[in-house]
């Protein structure tokens, strides 16, 4: 049944789940949430499975009218949330009822927040996912960011018997100076001094930063003498750091499947949330890390999510 009416859409609000898998060979990018951790917790807080469709909010939150009783939660970037103009906390479940107005403000730290609804947002499934791929105009709500007066449905589900909150120590900070860990390659052999530069300099996030990629600005990263300036196009991963001929790095994210420039390094999965919580003007320092350590961090992140699941199920 209709559950939410969009009164104001905010900066850039899309419906996302974990992503669209299995179609990258036809050029359909994975899409999905950029901050997996905040996304999983938003769902757990309202009693959903961790991979349920939510709203991803960017920089400025929406204002919505609630049309049925639900549990909602807001995680990720600190934006501030009010119910009928009364401030409530993020990272905890919030009971709302028919007629309530939920308003989410301007970002104070971080970039993207996740707004979950008990039962989950109900939109048509496209190629196995609810995620919006705006470039391809598919998925989510009509393949586009939300607009004023959109009516969104959610699935009916029993409400929580008790409210939950994420323990303070598990809530990430979103610093405006971020350290991002990356594994050299796949084309690290195209670079010599450039690798040193990448891991020693500071880079600034430019205004050209969205779900496709982040363009950075800083010390130029030259390709080794004698190497071609571009490569035969090959698939990219979310987190690929590619170096175009202007020698300024571009981080490729989730709405992209192929890159034609040499990729000097790849950001580890666990730090994709960190990069996607930076905004233009923030600074980044890259830190080199090996594959085993990176895998250890993925396990650690999963354990964190499991811990929270356990805390909530013990209520």
């Amino acid at each position, binding site marked *: 049944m209709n559950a939410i009416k969009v009164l104001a859409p905010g900066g850039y609000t899309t419906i996302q789940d974990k992503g669209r898998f299995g179609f990258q060979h036809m050029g359909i990018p994975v899409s999905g949430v950029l901050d997996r951790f905040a996304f999983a917790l938003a769902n757990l807080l309202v009693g959903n499975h961790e991979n349920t469709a939510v709203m991803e909010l960017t920089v400025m939150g929406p204002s919505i009218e609630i049309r049925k009783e639900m549990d909602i939660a807001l995680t990720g970037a600190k934006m501030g949330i009010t119910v009928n103009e009364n401030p409530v906390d993020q990272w905890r479940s919030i009971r709302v009822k028919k007629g309530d107005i939920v308003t989410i403000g301007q970002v104070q730290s971080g970039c993207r927040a996740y707004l979950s609804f008990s039962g989950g947002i109900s939109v048509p499934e496209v190629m196995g996912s609810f995620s919006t791929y705006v470039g391809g105009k598919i998925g989510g709500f009509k393949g586009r960011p939300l607009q004023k007066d959109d009516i969104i449905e959610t699935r009916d589900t029993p409400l929580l018997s008790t409210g939950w909150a994420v323990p303070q120590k598990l809530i990430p900070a979103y610093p405006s100076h971020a350290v991002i860990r990356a*594994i050299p390659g*796949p084309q690290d052999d195209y670079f010599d001094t450039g690798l040193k530069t990448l891991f020693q300099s500071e880079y600034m996030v430019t205004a050209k930063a969205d779900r496709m990629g982040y363009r950075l600005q800083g010390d130029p990263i030259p390709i080794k003498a004698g190497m071609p300036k571009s490569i*035969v196009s090959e698939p990219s991963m979310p987190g690929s750091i590619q170096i175009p001929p202007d020698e300024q790095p571009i981080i490729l994210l989730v709405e992209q499947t*192929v890159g034609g420039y040499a990729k000097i390094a790849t950001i580890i999965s666990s730090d994709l949330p960190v990069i996607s919580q930076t905004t233009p003007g923030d600074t980044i320092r890259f830190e080199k890390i090996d594959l085993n350590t*990176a*895998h250890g961090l993925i396990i650690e992140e999963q354990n964190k999510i499991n811990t929270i699941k356990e805390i909530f199920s013990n209520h």
Partner: protein
Amino acid sequence: MKMGGEEKPAIRLAGDTGLIIEFGQGIDPGVNAKVRAMAGAVKTNTLRGVTEIIPTYCSLLLIYDPLITRPGKLVSAIERIENTLERTGTEPCKVVEIPVCYGGEFGPDIENVEKSANFCREDVIRFHSEPEYLIYMIGFTPGFPFLGGLNKKLFTPRLKTPRMSVPEGSVGIANNQTGMYPIASPGGWQIIGRTPLKLFAPQRKNPFLYKAGDKIKFIPISRKEYTRLKIKEEN
């Protein structure tokens, strides 16, 4: 990061969830056939923990879940499969004709190609629309075909800074590659023309007009013909 020697395919790390298996360099129909055969074999063998199998010109990208499998395990499985790989015959393919209006507002970079190749516009159009191009891979955006067989005379480097938005239907050149943009997207290719056809239509029964392994033939058309076909496509 590159492992492996000359005879075996090289394995490159693509972050903590990707492995690239590289069968050679550049654009080569033989190498590409091997890539596609390997992609098929990996699919048939269903490797546990592999979530995506993406064949490209000369390499195969496997995306895996490190909570389920280990890269070392995957590498040995890949080597085992590679050893049993049989030479596959050429699959049947169709030739798909794509009408293109070259130059003008639809092909803002055609002059770059003329200058770089030192040919007049007519020659550039003739050289570009002559061959039947093999679709080596599809990627970048839904249905974006990467085509091999571009005439050497037309090789032109990418734009120094990629455009933030290239219009839907644009036909371009990047070094030794040519291709089309099925949806508006950022890109660094030299744009020489535009097709009125809808190359990606999710509402159509088959959203795509072609698949990897098919061939593309460009047919030069006038501005008037472009408009006529465009109106026809939209109805």
